[in-house]
């Protein structure tokens, strides 16, 4: 049943692309496009919830498995396990929130939602594919809509950012394609199903180079330092819904690929090399180091930003560092935490981008913290201020929110693996508090007195009122992070067995 999330998303995209563009009454067709997009996103979310509930307590469930390219042994194989179900749920959530937060898009509305739904469909597809080839196909399908979403509807240096994002993604997927071709040729099993490939006993020497290439290839999209530079520019340039999707689910595609493909298929690539240099003795150490650098680097750079959205952009790099660190701990608790962090960061980053990009920017038309300082948003936009307070503390990792459970598990996993990883990334959390605090204070609760020339004579002009889609989507995302924060087992019960099976080498 989960497969329908993919089909209805693509069908919706096609429908919206073919929707006749009203000549005079453009408003009408735009309203229709919004409603269609919302209906499809909600339907996808509903299917995701139902599928998640139905899959409780089950291992891998095959949804469909038919030969696709019989001559090459490629199967159209969709299946879901505990990890996929959680991420599909996240995608549905991000899709609904994304549509709601783009309710005010007036420029080429139906095309916007067509690209949006095409991207969502590709993301659903990646999470549900259990054939390496199919996974790759969906992974690449997701690249093109991203480009157009940013290039057409974006802001700050949008064409540059869109091209950069598209090329980074494509280079990453080219690396994956090389490994795919090599694994297909080497395994000799004449099948590209993940299960078959993981059983093919690929030679250790092959895994030793295939693992890092795959991990970097997917890691580019997960914001792996130093290949993360597309992320801040891309997030900032993207329209709100697209930055929500980028941070919320697209970066997870990369992390998911690292887990499912790199670690799942080439586990021996993480074995020690047999020699070490300054404590770096395996690819695992290398990528853990990169992840830790990413955590610290992202946090420190976020601390120095003057653009509100860049703060969130770099914080994404930092938080995704926790995901990558959790993955390479290879411990049950660490990888659990990584998957939970994917969900958690997807929700929280989506919310932060929505507040900055939609609720604040669309009203103030500036994202410069220095200018926001003189606007007293704490009093003039109380909804935005309090929403950001809650999202901010969730992002800092306060208990009661999903981020806390996730990052705690990652840190425990890292401690089991190598204590200094935990020590270093703990510093990242502290800096995380600092930059969130700084942004919060500057943007909303400044006590700087206005200069005389700043103070308008007839009082402050009123901002547009907060609209219902904004309130609904904000509450939805709040609920998503709170429920998991208070009762993490709701997701962990699903994640744990799947991670266990994956780490045990086989895919069940």
């Amino acid at each position, binding site marked *: 049943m989960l497969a329908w999330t993919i089909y209805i998303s693509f069908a919706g995209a096609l429908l919206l*692309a073919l929707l006749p*563009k009203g000549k005079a009454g453009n408003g009408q067709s735009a309203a229709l496009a919004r409603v269609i997009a919302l209906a499809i996103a909600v339907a996808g979310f509903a299917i995701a919830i139902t599928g998640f509930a139905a899959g409780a307590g089950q291992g891998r469930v095959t949804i469909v498995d038919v*030969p*696709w*390219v*019989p*001559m*090459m042994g490629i199967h159209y194989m969709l299946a879901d396990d505990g990890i996929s179900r959680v991420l599909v749920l996240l995608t549905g959530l991000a899709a609904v929130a994304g549509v709601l937060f783009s309710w005010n898009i007036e420029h080429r509305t139906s*095309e916007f939602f067509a690209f949006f739904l095409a991207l969502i469909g590709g993301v659903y597809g990646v999470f549900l594919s259990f054939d390496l080839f199919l996974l*790759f*196909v969906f992974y*690449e*399908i997701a*690249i*093109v809509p991203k*480009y*157009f979403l940013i*290039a*057409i509807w974006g802001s700050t240096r949008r*064409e540059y950012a869109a*091209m950069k994002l*598209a*090329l980074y993604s*494509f*280079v990453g997927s*080219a690396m994956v*394609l*090389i490994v795919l*071709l*090599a694994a*297909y*040729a*080497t395994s000799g099993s004449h099948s590209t199903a993940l299960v078959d490939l993981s059983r093919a006993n690929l030679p250790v020497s092959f895994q030793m180079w295939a693992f890092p290439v795959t991990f970097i290839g997917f890691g580019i999209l997960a914001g792996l330092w130093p290949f993360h530079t597309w992320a801040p520019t891309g997030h900032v340039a993207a329209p709100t819904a697209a930055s929500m999707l980028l941070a919320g689910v697209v970066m997870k595609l990369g992390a998911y690929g690292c887990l499912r493909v790199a670690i799942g298929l080439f586990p021996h690539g993480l074995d020690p090399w047999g020699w070490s240099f300054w404590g770096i003795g395996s690819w695992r150490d290398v990528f853990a180091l990169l992840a830790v650098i990413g955590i610290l680097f992202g946090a420190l750079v976020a601390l120095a930003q003057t653009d509100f959205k860049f703060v969130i952009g770099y914080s994404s790099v930092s938080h995704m560092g926790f995901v990558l660190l959790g993955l390479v701990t290879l411990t049950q608790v660490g990888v659990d935490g990584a998957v939970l962090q994917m969900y958690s960061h997807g929700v929280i980053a989506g919310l932060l981008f929505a507040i900055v990009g939609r609720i604040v920017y669309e009203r103030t038309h500036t994202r410069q913290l220095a200018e926001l300082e003189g606007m007293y948003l704490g009093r003039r936009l109380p909804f935005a201020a309090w929403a950001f307070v809650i999202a901010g503390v969730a992002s800092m990792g306060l208990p009661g929110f999903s981020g806390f459970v996730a990052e705690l598990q990652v840190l425990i996993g890292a401690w089991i693996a190598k204590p200094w990883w935990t020590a270093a990334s703990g510093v990242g959390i502290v800096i995380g508090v600092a930059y969130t605090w700084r942004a919060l204070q500057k943007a909303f609760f400044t006590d700087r007195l206005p200069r005389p020339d700043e103070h308008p004579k007839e009082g402050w002009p009123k901002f547009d009122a907060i609209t219902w889609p904004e309130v609904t989507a904000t509450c939805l995302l709040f609920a998503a992070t709170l429920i998991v924060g208070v009762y993490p087992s709701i997701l962990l019960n699903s994640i744990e067995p799947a991670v266990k099976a994956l780490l045990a080498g086989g895919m069940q």
Partner: protein
Amino acid sequence: MNYADLFRVTLPETALDIAALLVLIVDLGFLRKAALQTRIVASVLIAVLGCGAAVLTMPYQADGGLTYPGTTDLLLSAGGYTAIAQVGILILTVLTLFLLIGSDFTKHVSEFVAVVLMAATGGLLISAAQDLLVIFVGLELLSLGLYILTAFAKRSGKSAESAMKYYLFGGMSAAFLLFGFSYLYGLTGSTNLHQIMLGFYGPTVISSTSLVYVALVMIAAGLGFKVAAVPFHLWAPDTYEGAPAPAVAFIASVSKVASFALLIGIGTAADHIFNQMGHSDVVTVSRGSMTKWIGFTGPWSLIIAIIAVASMVFGNLAALAQNSVRRLLAYSAIAHAGYILLAVAYYSGSNINANAILYYILTYGLTTIGAFGAVSVVERIHGSDRMDAFLGLYKRNGLLAGVLLVLFLSLAGIPPLVGFWAKFNLFAAVLQVNRGMVPFAFVALAVAMSAVSLYYYLQVLKRVFVMPPANETPVKGTPLTMGVLALITLVVVVLGCLPGLMQSWMASFYAGM
């Protein structure tokens, strides 16, 4: 051999030539006073019927082809890869001719159509040819047609210029090719491909390795020119820019299919003999453990591999700097030729390899015809193929914008479009032959280069979808042109979503062999 057998093998060629004559008779004899578009439609219709008849006659060709009198050596092959290439040539010819409808670059409609059909006859011949003389005659028949087609827009100086360049380069490369052929004949005493390959194991050849290299380099120059491979590509950008759109589409598709079919023929003959004779006593570029690394032994593979790498690197990098969409497509064609040549270098003679090459070149030909069709529609409004002519096309013709989106992304190799499967098939075929270090590095380079290519395809799509239109005049194509373009786009999508369809269709040609 008697003439009845010859006739039976060349039925498709005969059908095309009859159609060419009919086009001339009908147009010049009966339609002299008719309106231009009527004449175009009538001529294209006859040509399409001719191509259809050619396809229909193919099952009646003599099984396995035509042999020399009194021997078992093939003169013309039939069935298998030849049949696939011939069907492909006929389909692509039909699509090319559809692009003619609605154009007005020439009043000499029937001549254009007849030359297209005769050139296609040359294409059919070389995809079947197993003899140096037939190869040369077929190539010349094809090439002379292409020179004429390039020059057909008599009012355009560019057309004449590009035809002249094409002709001069073409003449020279034909001379090189003939020179190489003469050496081969001198070394082995035969013009038949199989006999030549056998001769490679003889004492004359072994003792004159350098002459073999001279001959093979000359031949590579001649055939490299046909497929526009670096460093024999210099004609391509100018010709693509100056020639009328249907002519370019023909050069970019049919002529390429025929040339690669010829390369498959040469490879198959070589592989056949190689399997008979084994590795002993033959001119090789690598011995012992080296073979394991580089994955091929013969000098021919070495030459082709060098050309392939040069083409994909240079073609992709040069395309980055283009401002004319036609030139961009020319350099992208060079790059695509490079990918295919890689598979030619690592050709194993198995059906999988031949099919991977044909799959690539046929789908590439289809896509590129569509791309040139779309470009020509825009050109007709703006009189220019500069990138800026495409500004805001989404607003001015949504369908055309969608067509360009699909076709260009397919050329870039984005799934689930057919171009992606073609690439995957091709690279998988290379790695199937040999998984040594060098072929793997070549494939990695090719994949990396196709990542580069996304940049320049997106440059065009950016203007189509992202940037605002410079003026709002709608871009209109004739309904038939738009219909054909939409059909090509649909095929690209459907074959991309169901890649098995075309593979099993191609496999069915080998069923009886």
